[in-house]
């Protein structure tokens, strides 16, 4: 069995990564609404992902409003693809030929 990436495997972080994998970038409010996490929780998970190098966080201002943009890094994308492959391998039943020996039997006539 291939090893699963524990950073991504956590459901909240997996949701964040899955969301970011299908967009170019998103802001904090978008992720907050889509993940339904609390602000503190989302911040913590984003920090964890940033430490792992999976996401890039850019803090700026739009007018006077602070804006936090988050995007998936190339390492994060590779890790996510690898995680999905591992998960698929685990969940898909093996297609290897059965090793059960077939013994021909003769029924009494």
């Amino acid at each position: 069995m291939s090893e699963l990436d524990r950073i991504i495997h956590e459901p909240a972080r997996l949701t964040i990564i899955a969301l970011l994998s299908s967009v170019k970038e998103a802001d904090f409010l978008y992720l907050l609404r889509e993940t339904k996490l609390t602000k503190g929780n989302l911040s913590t998970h984003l920090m964890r992902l940033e430490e792992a190098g999976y996401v890039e966080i850019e803090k700026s201002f739009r007018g006077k409003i602070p804006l936090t943009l988050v995007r998936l890094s190339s390492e994060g994308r590779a890790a996510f693809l690898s995680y999905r492959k591992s998960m698929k391998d685990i969940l898909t039943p093996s297609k290897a030929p059965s090793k059960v020996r077939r013994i021909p039997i003769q029924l009494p006539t």
Partner: protein
Amino acid sequence: MEPPLDVDDVVSRVRRNWMKDGLAEIMLGLLFVLMGGGSLAKLALPRWLSLDLLTSALTVAGALGLVWGFKKAKERITFPRCGYVALPQPTRMSRAAMFAMFAAFGVIFTLLMTQFNRMTVPVSALVFALILTAPGLRVKGLRMIWEGVLTLLFGAFLFWFTDLDGSRGLMALTGMIGAAMVIIGAVRLRNFLKSNPLAQEPEA
């Protein structure tokens, strides 16, 4: 081992939610109305004026204006309520595929209007229904599938209950689809504004 969540559903949810504000429908509907209006202008104007090029240019300019308006509306209406999100740019391959698809549709429509006048409306309805339904199936968007069905019904109505064919039939069809989509989009937008009041604290 159980998967912690349905990743495919999360990915398709992003695309579905992109259209939940109804703005995409309003824009697409206006685009259809514009196409119908452009054709109507061509038919209505006297031949000696020869304004084909001008009406085509105005239609293209209108379409570009609609795309610009859509982006502005997203910035003013959707992003302050639901947060900013940018979808990835289409790849070169998908742009080429889209161009090829539109070129094929152009050939089909021209062929229909010049050779098979009576079949213009039903075939066009089928093509438009496919355009609406295919992305709906991909992102599991039931609304888009219904819009495809509605398009087929419009096509069937025009084919069996009116004598409109060729360019006039196509014009009526695009007008009907456009009007229906604008109405659906407007209702969606109203519901979206009701259920998503402006966020007081946009940032953490």
